[in-house]
């Protein structure tokens, strides 16, 4: 699943570790989501969307 997480994080100049701390997950989880190796659960996707003030479908693209 493709997503804009890396772009959104870079816009805020957050490191993966900093984003992980804000989400309450490990840095490995953030990295795996960004690289598309892991698709987050719905609750985590909602947390990510809420953190960046966007809708889930504007961050995650299930088509790719």
């Amino acid at each position: 699943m493709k997503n804009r997480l890396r772009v959104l994080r870079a816009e805020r100049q957050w490191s993966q570790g900093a984003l992980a701390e804000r989400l309450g997950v490990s840095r490995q989880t953030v990295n795996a989501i960004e690289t598309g190796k892991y698709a987050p659960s719905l609750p985590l996707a909602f947390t990510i969307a809420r953190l960046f003030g966007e809708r889930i479908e504007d961050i995650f693209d299930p088509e790719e």
Partner: protein
Amino acid sequence: MEEASTRRSGWACLRHQLGTEADRRNQFRFLGWLALWMVTFVAAAQWLRSDTPPAGPAAWAIASGPMILGVVTVIAYLHYLRQTDELIRRIQLEGLAIGFAAAVLFLVGYPLFEDAGAPTVSLGDSVLVLAVGWSFGQLYATWRYR
């Protein structure tokens, strides 16, 4: 400050790779109980198999000690699993699945090798296979989601 976190030392990166602060705390707690369980198990086994083993209720109490610590270790592991994030939970699940599969394959398949002339092994050796398979499985899953 955020930029500084991208220039972490190797140890700091490794610590961060091991999960959140709560994960590391729970991992150390689990490993501590596991070590205590193993030490107690070895001590109890040596005492019960010594030349002057305890008898009666004392022997039962000594045999029960490692079992109680084993239950505490399992509880500590379950606590870690419930507290950790979803990716690490998946990595643990894949590690356990690989370890379980290795142990079952060993238990079911090795007797045929024994019939073919391979050395006889005890049932306890499958625990070693499970442990090695679990460790390998965790490494593999960690690499897969790196």
